[in-house]
C-alpha cells in the first residue's frame, strides 16, 4: 500500500507539471475580481433593503424600535456619568478582551528541578472559545524578549495552527538523558498544546474564571512602575497546569490584565510556579510566527501520518482493548521485543508500521547482528497524557553477547472504530544505547 502511494507521489504527481501562464492568471484573476466587486456591491444594498422592510412592516416593531433607542440613550448617559470615577469589574475586562485579536506574553516558569526558565508566547485566541488558542507559539530557552528566530535550534517550541489543524512540538538537543544530541519534533492533528503551557487570556477565559473562581479578593492600588491605577486580584481557579492560585494585575483605565503570577498552593509569598511579567495586546505578529520549521537532523514523528497508515490498514499493531494507557504501553513494547527476540519479522513489521522499506532492511540486519536475547525490564513510561506527542517507554535489553543496552521507544495507541490498536512509532534516537 505504501509502495504504490510513493509511486503515485513521486512518478505521477511530482511529474504532473502544469505551468501557469500570465494570460491564464490575467483571465482568471480579472474575472474573479470583477465577480467579487459585483457581489460586494449587490450584497449590502440587498441586505439593507430587506432589514428596513422587516423593521417597518409592523407598528409593534416600530414602537419597539423607538423604545430600544430611548433605552440605549438612558444607558449611555448612565455609563458616561459613571466613567468620571474610574472603577473596574471583571465584566469590563471580558468585554474589552472581545476586541483583542492577538496577545504576546513573556515571563518565566519553574522547572521540575525548581530552576527558572524564560518563555514567551504569541497567541491568537480561537473565535469559537477564546479561552483556547487558534494560533499559538510558545518558546522556552535563552533569547531576548520578542526576539523571533524560527531557525534557533536550541529553543523548546510549541506551535498550534488552526489552519493546519495541527500541533507541533519541538524538543532541542540535550532534552533526553540517553540521547544528548537528539532533536525531535512531534506533529499531531488537532489543537492540543501542552496542558502545562500558559493559558490563553481570551474573554472566555475570564468568563469561566468569573463563574468558577473562589476566594476572590480585589485590592485597588497604584502600579509602582507606571504610576497607573490598578486592581490586584487574588483568587483560586483551577488550571490544566496544576497551579491554581492566581494573582492578577488589571489596569483600571484599559481594563486589561497587565501581568499575572500562578502558585501551586495559597502561599502567595513563595516563588510562583509561573510569572507573566509582560503582556502586549494586538502585537505586530512576526511573519511566519505560527509556522513550524524543523531544524536540520530533527527526527520528525508525525501522528497524522501514523493515524492514516493504521486507519488504512487495521491489521497494524496489536489490540490493547481494556488496558489503561500505561499498561497498554508496556504490553506493546514487551510484545514488540518478544517478536524481535524470536525473529518474528512479520509481526515486528506489523507492529512498527511507520518504518520505510529501506530503513526496515537496515533495522532487520541490525537486529540480526546484535541479537537482542532478553527483555530485562521496562522502566516508567514518560509523556503519557500529552496528546500532542507520544508516550516514551525505556527498556533494558540483554544482548546475546551478554551486554546490556537501553532501547527507548515511542509508542502510540490508535482508536480504530471500537478497537484500540497499539503500535511502535519509532525509537527515541539510535535503537540501542549504553545504559
Amino acid at each position, binding site marked *: *500500500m505504501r*509502495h*504504490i*502511494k510513493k*509511486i*503515485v*507521489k513521486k*512518478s*505521477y*504527481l511530482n*511529474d*504532473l*507539471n*502544469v*505551468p*501557469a*501562464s500570465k*494570460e*491564464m*492568471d490575467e*483571465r*482568471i*484573476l480579472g*474575472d*474573479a*475580481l470583477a*465577480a*467579487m*466587486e*459585483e*457581489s*460586494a456591491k449587490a*450584497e*449590502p444594498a440587498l441586505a439593507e433593503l430587506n432589514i428596513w422592510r422587516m423593521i417597518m412592516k409592523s407598528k409593534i416593531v416600530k414602537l419597539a424600535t423607538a423604545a430600544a433607542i430611548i433605552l440605549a440613550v438612558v444607558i449611555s448617559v448612565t455609563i458616561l456619568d459613571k466613567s468620571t470615577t474610574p472603577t473596574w469589574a471583571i465584566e469590563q475586562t471580558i468585554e474589552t478582551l472581545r476586541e483583542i485579536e492577538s496577545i504576546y506574553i513573556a515571563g518565566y516558569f519553574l522547572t521540575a528541578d525548581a530552576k527558572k526558565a524564560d518563555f514567551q508566547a504569541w497567541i491568537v485566541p480561537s473565535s469559537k472559545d477564546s479561552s483556547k488558542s*487558534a*494560533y499559538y507559539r510558545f518558546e522556552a530557552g535563552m533569547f531576548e524578549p520578542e526576539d523571533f528566530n524560527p531557525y534557533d535550534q536550541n529553543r523548546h517550541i510549541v506551535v498550534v*495552527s*488552526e*489552519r*493546519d*489543524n495541527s500541533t507541533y512540538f519541538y524538543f532541542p538537543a540535550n532534552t533526553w538523558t540517553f540521547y544528548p544530541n537528539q532533536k525531535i519534533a512531534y506533529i499531531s*492533528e488537532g489543537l492540543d498544546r501542552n496542558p502545562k503551557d500558559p493559558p490563553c487570556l481570551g474573554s472566555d477565559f475570564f468568563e469561566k474564571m468569573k463563574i468558577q473562581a473562589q476566594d476572590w479578593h480585589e485590592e485597588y492600588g497604584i502600579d509602582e512602575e507606571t504610576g497607573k491605577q490598578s486592581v490586584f486580584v487574588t483568587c483560586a481557579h483551577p488550571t490544566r497546569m496544576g497551579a491554581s492560585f492566581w494573582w492578577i494585575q488589571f489596569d483600571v483605565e484599559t481594563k486589561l490584565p497587565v501581568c499575572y503570577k500562578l502558585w501551586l498552593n495559597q502561599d502567595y509569598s513563595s516563588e510562583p510556579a509561573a510569572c507573566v511579567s509582560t503582556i502586549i495586546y494586538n502585537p505586530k505578529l512576526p*511573519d*511566519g510566527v*505560527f*509556522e513550524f520549521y524543523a531544524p536540520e537532523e530533527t527526527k520528525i514523528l508525525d501522528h*497524522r501520518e501514523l493515524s*492514516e497508515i493504521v*486507519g*488504512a490498514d487495521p491489521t497494524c499493531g496489536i489490540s490493547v482493548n481494556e488496558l489503561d494507557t500505561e499498561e497498554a504501553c508496556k504490553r506493546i513494547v514487551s510484545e514488540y521485543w518478544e517478536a524481535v527476540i524470536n525473529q518474528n519479522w512479520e509481526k515486528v513489521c506489523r507492529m512498527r508500521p511507520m518504518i520505510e522499506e529501506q530503513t526496515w532492511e537496515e533495522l532487520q540486519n541490525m537486529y540480526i547482528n546484535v541479537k537482542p536475547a532478553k527483555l530485562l525490564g521496562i522502566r516508567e513510561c514518560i509523556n503519557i497524557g500529552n496528546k500532542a506527542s507520544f508516550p516514551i517507554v525505556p527498556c533494558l535489553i540483554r544482548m546475546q553477547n551478554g551486554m546490556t543496552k537501553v532501547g527507548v521507544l515511542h509508542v502510540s495507541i490508535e482508536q480504530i472504530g471500537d478497537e484500540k490498536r497499539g503500535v511502535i512509532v519509532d525509537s527515541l534516537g539510535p535503537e540501542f544505547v549504553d545504559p
Partner: protein
Amino acid sequence: MLKDSLLIRRFNRGDKDALRSIYEMYRDDLLKVAAALLNDKSSVEDVIHDVFVSFARTVGTFKLSGSLKGYLSICIANRARDRNRATRRQNAIGLDSARLNRSEISGPVQSAISSELFQQLNYAMAQIPYEQREIVILHLQSRIKFKQIAKLKGVSVNTVLSRYRYGLDKLRLILDGEANNETYKKNS
C-alpha cells in the same frame, strides 16, 4: 505566509489583494489537482477559472472551516467530476483519450515529463472510478486529511478511507497488469 483565516477576513472585507494572494498561493496545487482529475486536460484552466469566480462571489459571507486549500481542492474535484460527465456525454470518450499526449495538449497545460511510468500511471488513474481517484488525489496531492474530505463531501470517514484503499489497490493491480504485459511483449 499569511494565515488563511486572516486572508479570509480581509477577503470578506472586499480586499482585492487578499483574493490575489489566495489565488497565487494555491494556483499551482489546484492546477495539479485539476490536471490529475480531468479526463479532458484542456479544461484545466476553465475549471480553475470557474472555481475562483464562484469563490469570489462569496465575498462578505464566506466562512472557512478547515483549510482553505482543502476547500478549494474539493471545489476543483466537484467541478472536474461535472466536466468529466459532460465531456463523456458529448464525446463518449474512451479511456485511451485520457492518456496524456503532449501534442494534444494546448495552451499552458503541458506535461513536461512524459516518462513511460508517468503514462502508465496516467492511464491507470483514468481507469479507477472517479470517486476513488478524487480521494487519492485530494489526499496525496492536496494533503487533505481524510476527516476533512469526509466533512466537505458529506460522507463518512470510513467511506473515504475505503475509497482511498480501493483506489490504491486498483492502481496497483492495473500497474502490475501493465508490467506483466510489457514483460510478455518483450519475451514473445
